[in-house]
């Protein structure tokens, strides 16, 4: 029985790290009977850098251009192995424009009787704080985390996906990244039916640190002024001062409550159908830190990085 393995994210659950493991372990996977098709960003993934995985074309094609699916199927038909695709875009499109029927049709054409989905979720506050810092650094976000929280609906999307893809031929394994981040590869090996230690790890096991509170404030100002401008400052300060301890952005009580109220029902429903030890934690209801200080700390080294980064762009 041939299986189509789909690692679908979602975002901020160690996806890039796992994709690096898959690329580095391609030959080992092949020996154990799993084909990990080539992806456009395999080189980046092999270096341990951010990549979009080998499943992005599949996600985009299944969702919007099913007539082009032949290009993806051709290399798969030459193999008798199980097939593994990985991409956060799979989650995105499976909650948008890919149906269970689309997926089953593709599996049939790829001669796969079974579909096994690996879905990593994350506790909402933990997820939002991490996503917020990434968006400030990489996507030009300049608003406060409370603004982003107003749009946060990940547990609702997870619930919709679990409902929409509830089918006898589709097996969905849900793991909570907030619980298993230290055993991420072990859990993934377990999902794929591999012996422990099969997957190779990238050399660069340390993920780039997040921003400190002061760095975040400065980058937000630059984003407001220049649009996405993490390369101007955030990337440089993280590179230059990798050992600094990042700060978590602090969400206001009202934003926490509103977000909790919006997501709580979906979280409760999901918790009923996933293993108890992987359940969502209602961390939005945790008491916020007492020291909700307006003060941030900045070092000479950080200031030097800012001035050096801006120096060639400053006009007097």
């Amino acid at each position, binding site marked *: 029985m041939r299986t189509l393995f789909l690692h679908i994210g979602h975002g901020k659950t160690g996806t890039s790290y796992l994709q690096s493991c898959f690329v580095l372990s391609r030959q080992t996977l092949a020996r154990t009977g799993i084909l990990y098709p080539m992806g456009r960003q395999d080189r980046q993934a092999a270096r341990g850098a951010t990549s979009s995985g080998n499943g992005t074309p599949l996600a985009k094609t299944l969702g919007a251009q099913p007539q082009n699916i032949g290009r993806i199927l051709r290399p798969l038909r030459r193999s008798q192995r199980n097939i593994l695709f990985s991409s956060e875009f799979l989650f995105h499109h499976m909650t948008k424009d890919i149906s269970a029927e689309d997926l089953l049709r593709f599996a049939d054409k790829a001669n796969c009787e079974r579909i096994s989905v690996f879905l990593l979720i994350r506790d909402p506050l933990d997820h939002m704080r991490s996503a917020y810092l990434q968006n400030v650094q990489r996507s030009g976000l300049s608003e406060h985390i409370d603004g982003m929280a107003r749009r946060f609906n990940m547990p609702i999307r997870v619930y919709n996906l679990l409902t929409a893809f509830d089918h006898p031929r589709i097996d969905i394994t849900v793991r909570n990244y907030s619980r298993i981040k230290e055993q991420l590869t072990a859990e993934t090996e377990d999902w794929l039916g591999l012996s422990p230690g099969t997957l190779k790890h990238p050399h660069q096991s340390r993920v780039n640190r997040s921003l400190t*509170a*002061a760095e975040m*404030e*400065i980058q*937000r*100002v*630059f984003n407001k*002024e*220049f649009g996405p*401008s993490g390369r*101007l400052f955030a990337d440089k300060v993280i590179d230059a001062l990798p050992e600094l301890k990042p700060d978590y952005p602090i969400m206001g009580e009202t934003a926490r409550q509103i977000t909790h109220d919006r997501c709580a029902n979906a979280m409760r429903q999901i918790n009923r159908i996933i293993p108890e030890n992987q359940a969502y934690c209602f961390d939005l209801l945790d008491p916020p830190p007492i020291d909700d200080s*307006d*003060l*941030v*700390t*900045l*070092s*000479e*080294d950080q*200031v*030097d990085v*800012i*001035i*050096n980064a*801006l*120096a060639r*762009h*400053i*006009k*007097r």
Partner: protein
Amino acid sequence: MMGEDDVLVSSPFFLTRMGGPGFADELTAFARTAGFDRVSVLMVIREPFEHLAEMYLHDIRHAGSTQRFAEAGAVFDMPAQALRVMERHPEPLFDVRVVNYRNVADAEPKVIADWLGIEGDQLRAPKITTERALTAAEAMFQRALNAQYGSSADILINELYAATPDLLPDPPRLSSADAIALHERLRPTMAALNQQIDPAQAYDLSPPSPEACQQPAPTERGEVTVSREHLQQIAAHLAHKVRL
């Protein structure tokens, strides 16, 4: 040759020159050539810790300084300069009157008129516009800019001052150890000067209070604590100078 009038000259550079070697001879020669038989000097001294802080921030803004505060403290020697002015300009030609800034800060025209021997109301004081001092965060950014461009208050501080005139400054402070070391170094000189001047104008010789020192001690890296709003103001002013 000058006439019969007394002459008044004023410059902060006199302190450095008069404390240096040879200047007393030059001044003596000039006074005799110009027909002056007396040189009256008004020297305003200031308590070292507040003087150091003000000079430090002034030099960052106006003189392109890149020093850390502890470095500035390690070379601060104003009381020694003041003492040398006293020692190198003896009577009868010279008459050095020393006043402590704490006694003149609010009554400068009266003190100067008294020294000049004129009625107090004959001196018209300008309208005083005091600018706030640099905040610790501003000083840190400006020092980094100075290191890159030389004196460069035009990039950041001048506009920031105009935009935020009412910010409360947070004066720089030495660590407890550095403050005690500075006091120990300056104390003998201050005591020597005190013996030569009006006790009402004397330096305060008491050791620095713990409240005057930085708690906790500054780190090697030199960190400042700053409000998010003020940091945003600094970043925004910097960003306005950037052309990508």
